[in-house]
């Protein structure tokens, strides 16, 4: 992270996310994890491509589907596993769970849309303090339903907030396909606020990275907010076992739009094998460590008077 990265490292990141998420889905039925989870399967190119441009001072604001963003940001595998298991070593000591992560300049929250004004305000604060930081805010197509998103776009444009809105359009919100929740044009939703917007349909991490690069460029030179719409595919269920899409359509997009396959084609078989094996070990170790980690010390919780 934090500097243009070679193809192998990029592939490693994609694979880490993929294997992390697969492990989560596999282990959920075994009762290792709690609550809910939203996996990033199929969308790995977005986070890895976009966040490859990050500078250390930059900030990432993420949403419910945050594991991939967090790992691409450089987050620790074991800490994320531990957070999902409710362990003391988790990213937020088990308090946040899958959707509420904070580490360094990374923040996520499970309330859709509510993060967007936060990201905008963060960008304004960075600007005021002349840190040169940029804020990258991820949101999904369904989140365009939330009004506060538009309030934020207006303020970002009005005050030139250095923020890049990354809309991951997987054309579905939970189980609701785009045509049942959205009308109009997606780029227009940003452009109507005077926000310069790029859109591309790809699962190729290098294409994502290139487009994101232009946005970062634009942002760092003009200071004006930018939007990047990435038409992508969600391979897995929304959360767990709740996919109502026809399996054949899913299968097709897995064939045609797999970021790992697409980018993997740039590597030799040996490289692929090696990285895959290494990541496999990493994941297994991280999972096992997290599993052995202690639960949080409940005595630290301050109680109400009288209990």
């Amino acid at each position, binding site marked *: 992270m934090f500097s243009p990265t070679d193809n192998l490292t990029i592939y490693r990141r994609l694979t880490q996310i993929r294997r992390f998420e697969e492990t989560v889905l596999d282990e959920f039925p075994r009762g290792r994890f*709690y*609550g*809910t989870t939203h996996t990033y399967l199929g969308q790995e190119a977005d986070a890895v491509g976009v966040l490859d441009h990050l500078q250390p001072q930059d900030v990432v604001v993420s949403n419910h589907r945050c594991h991939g963003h967090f790992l691409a940001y450089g987050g620790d595998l074991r800490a994320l596993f531990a*957070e999902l298991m*409710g*362990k003391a070593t*988790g990213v937020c*000591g*088990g*308090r*946040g*769970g*899958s*959707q*509420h992560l904070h580490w360094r300049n990374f923040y996520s*929250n*499970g*309330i*859709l*849309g509510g993060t967007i004004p936060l990201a905008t305000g963060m960008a304004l604060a960075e600007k005021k303090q002349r840190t040169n930081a940029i804020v990258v805010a991820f949101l999904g197509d*369904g*989140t*365009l*339903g*939330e*009004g506060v998103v538009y309030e934020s776009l207006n303020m970002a444009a009005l005050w030139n907030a250095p923020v890049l809105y990354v809309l991951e359009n997987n054309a579905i*919100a*939970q*189980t*609701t396909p785009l045509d*049942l*929740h*959205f009308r109009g044009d997606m780029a227009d939703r940003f452009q109507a606020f005077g926000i310069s917007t790029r859109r591309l349909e790809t699962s190729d991490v290098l294409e994502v990275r290139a487009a994101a690069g232009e946005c970062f460029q634009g942002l760092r030179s003009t200071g004006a907010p930018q939007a990047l719409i990435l038409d992508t595919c969600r391979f897995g269920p929304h959360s767990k076992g*709740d996919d*109502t899409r026809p399996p054949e359509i899913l299968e097709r997009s897995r064939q045609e739009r797999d970021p790992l396959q697409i980018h993997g084609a740039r590597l030799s078989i040996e490289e692929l094998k090696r990285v895959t094996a290494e990541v496999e070990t990493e994941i297994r170790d991280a999972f096992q460590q997290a599993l052995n980690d202690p*639960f*949080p010390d*409940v005595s630290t*919780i*301050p*109680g*109400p008077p*009288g*209990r």
Partner: protein
Amino acid sequence: MTTVLESLQAGLEHALSCDPGVIVLGEDILDPYGGAFKVTRGLSTKYPDRILTTPVSEAGIVGVATGMALRGLKPVVEIMFGDFLTLAADQLINHAAKLRWVYDDRVRAPIVVRTPMGGRRGYGPTHSQSLEKLFLGVPGLQVLAPAAFGDPGGLLEKAILEDDDPVLFVENKLLYLLPIFQPGSQNDLDLAELTPGNTLSRAAQGAKHSGYPIYHLAVRSAPPPDLTMVAYGYMAELCRQVLLRLAYEEEIFSELFIPTQLAPFKLEPVLESARRTGSLLVVEEGSLTLGWGAEVLARASETLGPSLRSARRVAAFDLPIPAAVTLESVVLPGPDDIFNAAKSIL
């Protein structure tokens, strides 16, 4: 045995079949998914035109439904998680609940906003709250809460079909799979349905029916109770367990009141009981401060004065709800907390 979920599904479906003006709006409520907690499952197949899956726009949906209600329909809104009601707060408080009074009693806004609340599923701080307390003191808004006692589906049906005023309908998530305890006797316990209080609240006057029931639970053939307990929703189930345990282990006899209408508050039977026992325990899952129990205790102390010898609330800590189950179980009130509180006030 019918579960709360089945009962709610049936109540909703029956309302749809009775009145063509009933229309259901919510996120992801179409079949085959049928809603995050499945209360709407099957409906879109049967009534494709009247089940409207919506964008992720909680404020907008409630506003749209209120507009529909003002113009003759009976909309039912599902808010996927009660935590998101904060987004619809303005629509509920400054629109739906106010308009009848503000427009000089010349409109009605018969919407029902259903939403699951509560924790214990590890969903974390933004998907586990019991936020109904925010809405219990809103003039013009009624708040109902089914429990696994009596007829949850009937309660919902009545709210949809027979109530002229906006209703917030709070379903604790852990209720869905519970079997329903019917009035009568079961496992050493007697359940009775009481006619609701007679408070002359505006909302009650507006309702076309006689009110929403309060249930009364006590150990069969027990001596006069030492303790008055009151709880709603899933906490009523926990109180049921504690009530038995208190009787068996401690020979403490209590009676439990389970209101289905939280707001406007109607507490006559509870206050009468507390006058007799002198001890009142109020149990809720939401966080303590200014929760439902605060108003119950305030009314009890205003009404009963010194004959209220001891009163106590059991509620969640005043903290966000952590995701980790070990932490969550400390923050939320459990059976032991209720048991200990009951013993401590006697």
